[in-house]
């Protein structure tokens, strides 16, 4: 009796559990079908551009508030496709391309800037884009500073804004600045990566700007959001985009998808099978890229051959702590420079994807006229030269003697030690640090590599608690001013206190003559090229002699492209734009743009098999 009851209980359980299983399986199949529908949407492959991003976005698929701290404006594709900016700077050609604005003008004292907006622009919900939107956006940022992204920077520079007419605004600055139109944190112009984004007043008015999700996002760009999930953001081309109406130009891809495909191997496979058209920076290493290229001849990059990579605007330098002895002596800094074999750094750490750099500037064409003025200085101060004998000479002249273990020793018996700070999460810096440390050790310096990570690393770097550290020097592009200003002593803080930023003088360089030149440059409009050239030469003469930072290499950005479905990508052979899908300028890569000089339409990617 007992047994039977047990059995029947058991069999009943089996029946129930199998039913439950059945329901689960049905749900699972339904879920998979549903998910596939959401993800793929059956987008026609030859009309869709797939961009692979390096990780999922932190705030999820329903947040599109570009001013929310932590919002990912690149990996969502938002600032490339939906938002547009007044001007875009083409670093390759040096052009300042008017977009939502037609022109701007400074007052004579550089305290006011007047912007003339384009008249025929519409938001993607049909409303016209006017001066009201611009005034609303600046006032919103001023009122909510510092809670919204970049609102503190806007509040630091902008006194007020007013509308002159429906398509003209006037910004009043707190102090004169002839470069206000180049500050991305304050002005809707894109130089590197992004800029201030103008918001539609009719959507944002009355909303809490910090909590508002802005879903679906309203922008003026050529695409609108079709769907979004944890891993993919799908955009569809607008037929009534102002650019189409104005110029008769349609961006070629009907759909653009910003998608997380997985780690390096998944992206490598996606590129090989033509499921991905353009992965973001930092996903594929050179070795993996070469392997993919070998398997799929459609895959290419900026250079079809070595060095493959495009030049990122932040050249790499070795920061040396100017506030510590003996590195407070320029001779000692030069000795370290002579101990570094930059060709070996390029070949070993970068596998040949870049080249040695003489200074803190990227080798962009727009800067060539400035570089031309200092060719003789670069020869006089050979910053890329590897010359251990010369270093030895300098160390001896500074009173060092080589100890029995080959390490330099001061008269008082102290060994020449260097604490080499490195971010352990930065694989590029780890490789370079390993190579440079070995070169310095071979030259008689007792180097200790100190890998740190996260906030500890960042804090240590800012407080200057190191002797040397590898660092990108940003922004550096068509204007020589910014990368000189990094070395201004107004950013100098004593050792132990946090510097304003890593390359903003955490190496604690101080030279009043240099400061004076930079100060003069800061009030010289960038249009006054001849005067800027003169000042640039004066500043670089001091910089090269002092060598506050040791230049190492140009920065490589390995961004592969797949030409199976889309062609016309910018490349070294045809450098009409920057090959970066995470900058707002990608809008111009997809659509092309009217040349500011001739008005002729330049570039834009095309279908490899036009219908």
């Amino acid at each position: 009796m007992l047994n039977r009851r047990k059995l029947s209980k058991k069999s009943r359980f089996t029946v129930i559990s199998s039913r439950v299983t059945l329901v689960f399986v049905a749900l699972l199949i339904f879920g998979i079908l549903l998910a596939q529908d959401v993800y793929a949407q059956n987008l026609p492959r030859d009309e869709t551009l797939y961009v692979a991003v390096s990780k999922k976005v932190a705030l999820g698929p329903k947040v599109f508030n570009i001013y929310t701290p932590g919002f990912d404006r690149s990996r969502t594709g938002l600032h490339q496709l939906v938002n547009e900016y007044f001007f875009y700077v083409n670093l390759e050609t040096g052009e300042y391309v008017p977009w939502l604005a037609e022109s701007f003008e400074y007052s004579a004292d550089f305290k006011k800037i007047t912007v003339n907006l384009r008249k025929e622009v519409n938001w993607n919900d049909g409303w016209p884009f006017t001066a009201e939107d611009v005034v609303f956006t600046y006032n919103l940022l001023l009122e909510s500073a510092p809670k919204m992204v970049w609102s503190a920077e806007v509040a630091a520079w902008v006194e007020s804004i007013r509308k002159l007419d429906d398509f003209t605004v006037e910004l009043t600055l707190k102090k004169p600045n002839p470069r206000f139109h180049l500050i991305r944190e304050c002005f809707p112009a894109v130089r590197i990566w992004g800029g201030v984004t103008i918001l539609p007043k009719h959507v944002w008015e009355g909303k809490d700007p910090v909590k508002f999700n802005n879903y679906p996002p309203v922008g003026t760009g050529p695409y609108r959001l079709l769907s979004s999930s944890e891993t993919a953001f799908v955009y569809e081309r607008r037929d009534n985009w102002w650019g189409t109406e104005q110029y008769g130009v349609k961006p070629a891809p009907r759909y653009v998808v910003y998608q997380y495909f997985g780690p390096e191997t998944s992206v490598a496979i996606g590129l090989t099978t033509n499921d991905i058209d353009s992965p973001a920076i930092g996903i594929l290493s050179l070795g993996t890229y070469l392997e993919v290229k070998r398997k799929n001849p459609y895959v290419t990059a900026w250079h079809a051959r070595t060095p493959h990579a495009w030049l990122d605007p932040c050249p790499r330098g070795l920061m040396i702590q100017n506030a510590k002895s003996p590195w407070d002596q320029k001779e000692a800094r030069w000795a370290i420079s002579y101990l570094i074999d930059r060709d070996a750094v390029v070949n070993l750490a970068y596998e040949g994807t870049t080249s040695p750099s003489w200074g803190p500037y990227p080798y962009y064409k727009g800067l060539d006229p400035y570089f031309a003025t200092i060719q003789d200085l670069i020869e006089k101060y050979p910053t890329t030269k590897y010359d251990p004998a010369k270093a030895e000479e300098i160390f001896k002249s500074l009173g060092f003697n080589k100890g029995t273990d080959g390490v330099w020793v001061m008269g008082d018996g102290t060994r020449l030690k260097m604490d080499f700070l490195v971010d352990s999460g930065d694989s590029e810096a780890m490789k370079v640090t390993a190579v440079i440390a070995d070169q310095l050790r071979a030259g008689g310096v007792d180097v200790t590599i100190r890998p740190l990570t996260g906030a500890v690393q960042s804090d240590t770097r800012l407080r200057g608690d190191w002797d040397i550290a590898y660092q990108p020097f940003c922004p550096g592009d068509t204007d020589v001013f910014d990368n000189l200003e990094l070395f201004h002593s107004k950013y100098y803080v004593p050792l132990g206190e946090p510097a304003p930023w890593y390359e903003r003088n955490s190496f604690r360089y101080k030279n009043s003559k240099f400061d004076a030149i930079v100060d003069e440059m800061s009030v010289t409009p960038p249009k006054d090229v001849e005067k800027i050239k003169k000042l640039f030469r004066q500043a670089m003469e001091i910089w090269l002699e002092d060598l506050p930072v040791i230049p190492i290499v140009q920065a490589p950005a390995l961004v592969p492209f797949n030409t199976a479905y889309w062609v016309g990508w910018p490349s070294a052979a045809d450098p009409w734009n920057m090959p970066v899908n995470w900058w707002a300028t990608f809008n111009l890569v997809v659509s092309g743009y009217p040349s500011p000089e001739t008005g002729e339409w330049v570039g834009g990617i095309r279908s490899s098999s036009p219908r």
Partner: protein
Amino acid sequence: MKRGFVGILMGNRKFIIGFIIFIVILMGGIIAHQTIPFRYSRTGAFPPGLPPGVKNILGTDSLGRGIDVQLAEAVVNSVQIGLIAALIGTLVGAVIGFTSGYYGGIIDAILRVLMDVFLSIPSLLFLILIASLMRGVTVRGMALIIALFAWAPPARQIRAQVLSLKERAFVDMAKLSGMSEMEIITSELVPHMFQWMSANFVNATLAAILAESGLSILGLGPQNEMTLGMMIYWALSYAAVFRGMWWWWGSTVFTLTSIFISLYLLHLGFDEVINPRIRSKI
């Protein structure tokens, strides 16, 4: 019982095989480390990415360093980390375990909480935190960091054993014959636990080498010296597997696996000696 502990161990096949593998790897590492010039381990000493050949028996990595000389240094350093961490962990664990188990009361309550805390927190997270806070991790520093978490498991086990041992007749006998508490612990209890502690030591060595690899793969290993974990870190950061540089990751993984197997065999051998019921029939 005439053969003694060591005698039985020497008769255990698993122990002997494990011991031989371990000694071969370690001695190979030490000898190679002493004979191959140090400069071959410097970046740029050779052309990068060479497969094994006449000049470089095990090839070179993407930074132009010889794999053979790196491997030799790595074996010595990794084993050193394992041994130091295991020794400290076992000794500290023993002291705390004996104290806690034998004295009981408030001391036991405090130590027990401490042990539970150290046993339940995810040690890798803390190791990452500590490693990232230290200024320049060295091989010894790495061993100390790992030892910080290696004492809790043996302490817990020893405490449990001592709780049972101290109720036995021979302990009462020792008390009656006037032995002090310290004497009882050292001359009556420790010998009972010695075999178990040896087995734990081997196991802790294995765990410490594994922990070092884990930390190093995250880039938090000793940057100024080579370890097996650092070798894997470098191989991964140059995508050696995808690029088919088998000599790089292959030799490292093979060595690491061999060390694990040898230590595991040693551990099994110890287990069988301590616990005759699982001793193999042959």
